[in-house]
């Protein structure tokens, strides 16, 4: 029923972008300017203007994404076109520059733009891979349900730990009260859990054979193992969801930087004409 971004509308925007790239390439090949090709020839200006137009349009996506209920162009259209035109921009701007790179503002612009494109490609990869992984990881549960199940397990753990020796009780207490799910960004992304009190408690109970009576020990162990499983699910969930947003925090600020550099580029070019 649902079409992914890449194949949306029979890849209409891929086709448009390919045509654009092809025309640009042909023009570039058959264009023989005086001297080497560069942004200063008529073709250079044309392609530069085209590139700037695309650039601005791509950035406009950020605004468009936040204005709802407007005229009927679906966001999926925008997104699909955004991706393919963004990729086409690589070709258009490269031909525009005529491969004249140096240490200057123009080349800075070029690399900033390439970085935005690169981050876009990474983001797209996330968009395509992660939803499925998220769904599989959740196995039909929602975050809310998982959290309720954890608090349920915590309640049971607290109840059972009333009858055990102090040390076990302390480990379980830690597991119930001091287990963190999110933590800082690094924790979220690396799934770093070496000091997870739930894991510690599980290992402790596993190894403390014979300290408390066997049936309680078994009960504690199953609860702790279950909780650990849920925790790792939730942590993976958090990680994936975090990444799905995180890349935009690179993509968007660099978009602004690129726009600023573009303005500088144009000013410089006209100034030194």
């Amino acid at each position, binding site marked *: 029923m649902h079409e992914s971004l890449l194949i949306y509308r029979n890849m209409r925007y891929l086709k448009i972008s390919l045509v654009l790239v092809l025309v640009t390439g042909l023009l570039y090949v058959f264009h023989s300017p005086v001297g080497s090709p560069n942004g200063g020839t008529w073709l250079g200006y044309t392609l530069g203007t085209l590139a700037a137009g695309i650039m601005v349009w791509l950035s406009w996506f950020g605004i468009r994404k936040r204005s709802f209920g407007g005229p009927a162009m679906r966001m*999926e259209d925008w997104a699909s076109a955004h991706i393919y035109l963004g990729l086409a921009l690589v070709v258009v701007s490269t031909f525009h520059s005529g491969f004249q790179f140096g240490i200057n503002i123009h080349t800075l612009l070029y690399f900033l733009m390439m970085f935005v494109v690169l981050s876009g490609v990474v983001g797209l990869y996330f968009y395509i891979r992660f939803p499925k992984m998220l769904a599989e990881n959740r196995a039909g549960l929602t975050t809310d349900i998982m959290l309720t199940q954890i608090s349920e397990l915590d309640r049971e753990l607290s109840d059972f730990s009333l009858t055990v020796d102090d040390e076990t009780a302390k480990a379980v207490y830690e597991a119930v009260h001091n287990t963190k799910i999110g933590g800082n960004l690094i924790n979220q992304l690396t799934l770093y859990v070496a000091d997870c009190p739930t894991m510690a408690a599980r290992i402790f109970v596993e190894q403390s054979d014979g300290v408390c009576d066997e049936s309680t020990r078994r009960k504690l162990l199953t609860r702790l193992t279950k909780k650990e499983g849920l925790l790792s699910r939730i942590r993976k969930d958090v990680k994936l969801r975090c990444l799905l947003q995180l890349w935009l925090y690179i993509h968007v600020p660099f978009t602004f930087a690129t726009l600023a550099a573009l303005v500088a580029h144009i000013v410089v070019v006209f100034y030194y004409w």
Partner: protein
Amino acid sequence: MGERLKVAIVGSGPAGLSAAAHAAQLGMSHALLERADHASDTIYKYQKGKFVMATPDILPLRSDLSFMAGRREEVLDAWNQGLDSCRANVHYNSDVTKIDRTSEGFQLHTAGGEAFEAENVILSIGLQGNINKMRCEGGDLPLVQYQLDDPEEYENETIVVIGAGDAAIENAVALSAQNTVFIINRRAEFARAKQGNLSLILGAIDKGAVQCYYESNPLKVEPDGIVLDTPDGEVTVKCNRIIARMGASPPRRFVEACGVEFPSEDPKVLPEVSPTYESNVPGLYIVGALAGYPLIKQAMNQGYEVVAYLNGDDIPPADEPLLIEKFQAIGDVAVSDVLASIRETIPVFSELNTLLLREVMLESEVHAVRQGEDIFQRNDYSSTFYTIFAGHVGIQINEDDPSQVVELKEGAFFGEMGLISGRRRTATVVALTDCVVFETPRRTMLKLIQSVESVKRILDKTSILRQIQTHLTPGVPAEDLEDLVDSAEIQNFKAGDAIFSQGDTGNHMHLIRSGSCTVSTRVGGREVVLSYVPAGNYIGEMALLSNMPRSATVKAANNTETICLSGEDFSAVMAKNNILRNSIEAKFRARLRQNEQMAARPEAGNIIQFLVEQGVGEATDVLLIDETLCVHCDNCEKACAETHGGLSRLNREAGPSFASIHVPTSCRHCQHPHCMADCPPDAIHRAPDGEVFIDDSCIGCGNCENNCPYGVIQLASPPKEKSSLLSWLLFGKGSAPGEEASYEAGLLAERTKNGEKQEKDLSSKKAVKCDMCKDVEGGASCVNACPTGAAARVSPEKFMDIAMLSQ
């Protein structure tokens, strides 16, 4: 026992009050008997500060008491003052338990042992009914209560809640936050509760927050506890408080005991009354909600009128000017003449009494249509019913050739399929001459079908023929279908009922009129769903064509009505008609092929099964999210909030998932919306494109919220103005796009500043739900705003495609 009264009025709701006030005004001897210790108990029980509406606005008020839209307290004060100043004779705490007929009139008995003699009785007891009380020993002890206003009032108590309905569950769960709570259920499960409440209570019991005694009954209440009869013997539970929520019994039994007859067994049906509101018992009058007029103003008008009639005054009904205006389109004719000629020309309406006919006409629209104009078009989503008062109309039966029309003359009706299936119109209807047609809302017609036998009879016969012609045998002349129609029979199935089962013998065919079905077969001991069949299609042709036992089981996916056709009669029709035979056989082969494909892919069948279990079968348009695409950006919710006053009408994350299809909590625009069933001002409608929406006349009673089984309606305060996107971007003014608009914050500020303001804000809440963005350019914002294409709105016809495509 005192003097014999001219009239005794039972129940002091708006209808009873108004009657008593007019009787006092006229100096007629009367008594107003009210069960509660205050007037108008139904309105007294509204939420504190609730804003009471005076709909319908166009209807003039005719009463000696005043009534204007306003807060509950103001309305009640005005009535109490009015009653005092006109010296009405009111008896509070007088619960009338019995009304006997005597040779001179009636004798009324109250629970307190009083008796009243009266020549006439006006019953205005509304529809709220009697709260079921505890009948065991000690049931009147002070620890027993029947209502719970504010669960937060109680702390650290042990509380026993008796009952298993929604009210009992909601009370028990709310109380369990601060108290030890037991719930007593007469049965082994909570069968009567809404889905949401069911999971709520089972969760609470699972967690130990609420303790439940199943299959248990109260035996005895003691001053500090209750004795229960449980499957494990008698158990005593010590407690501080007992809250009995055992429902209310509708007033029908009491009314019947007074000698009043009801037209049918249907629990929704109300007694019939004459144009002067007299029931079948002479001298016993019925007004207000019990007579089928569910709004305050109507009830007050009737209270006044019925007393005026008793007094011998011949006043035209209050709606006379409205009808005059309505009939303007017909010409300058007196209302009574128009009504008479309606009865004469239109058979469906011919047996209605004057009061009912007036009501029907008030709710209907009169259209004067010029020759050649469309009345409605194929694929429109309206569900109204049309009758022809004058002129001829044509039904275009062939989509591709508009010149093929079936002509209907005055007296005939059309559009009746809208009453049954709640799906799109199947044909365009045009005026062949200038004509006058009446358009009657579905709700009004359904009420008529329930209460007037002749309406149902006439409708059924004609609509069976037309449905067979439309969906099964297009192009076959009506003469050839006579036997088939005569032997046809309408059958009803509840969700999950089998229409027939694999291996059954029998060759009936079923044409699905409303609802939908799943077709399944057993493969290796497992049930595999092969197909989903929506309304307007037939099933059962395979056995007929192949002369074999049923090859599959067909079950109703939701409440389903079919026309059951005799196999022999249908074979006879096919024998005469080659084209028909060929088309049925082609369909038969296509189905065989599809069944094979589906049997090879049980996952696809499981998806259908899942969707049906989620109640999606009764949807016309449901939001589905493909989990393999959704990046959880919540742009869909933001878009909905942004286009709907800051409050999202969909909850993306909530709701079940299966095989990467997620059904978020959002309106499904049901074929027969449950939410519409019981809306006092009739504020919920279906727009031409199928959107179910709530208009401004919503009075915030909350019925729809309770009635929607999918929990998609919320009660919310009206939205505040939102600042523009630009001013948010540039100056950080107002709320971010999609954020719960600033009125939430505004409300908080008001709360701290001014307690009174807050109350007003809360009490003017109205119901909100997804309206399919019918007023938003470009349609469903949630779908348009989804950047990945994960969100889609689909109709049941597409379920098969979804199932086939999904992995």
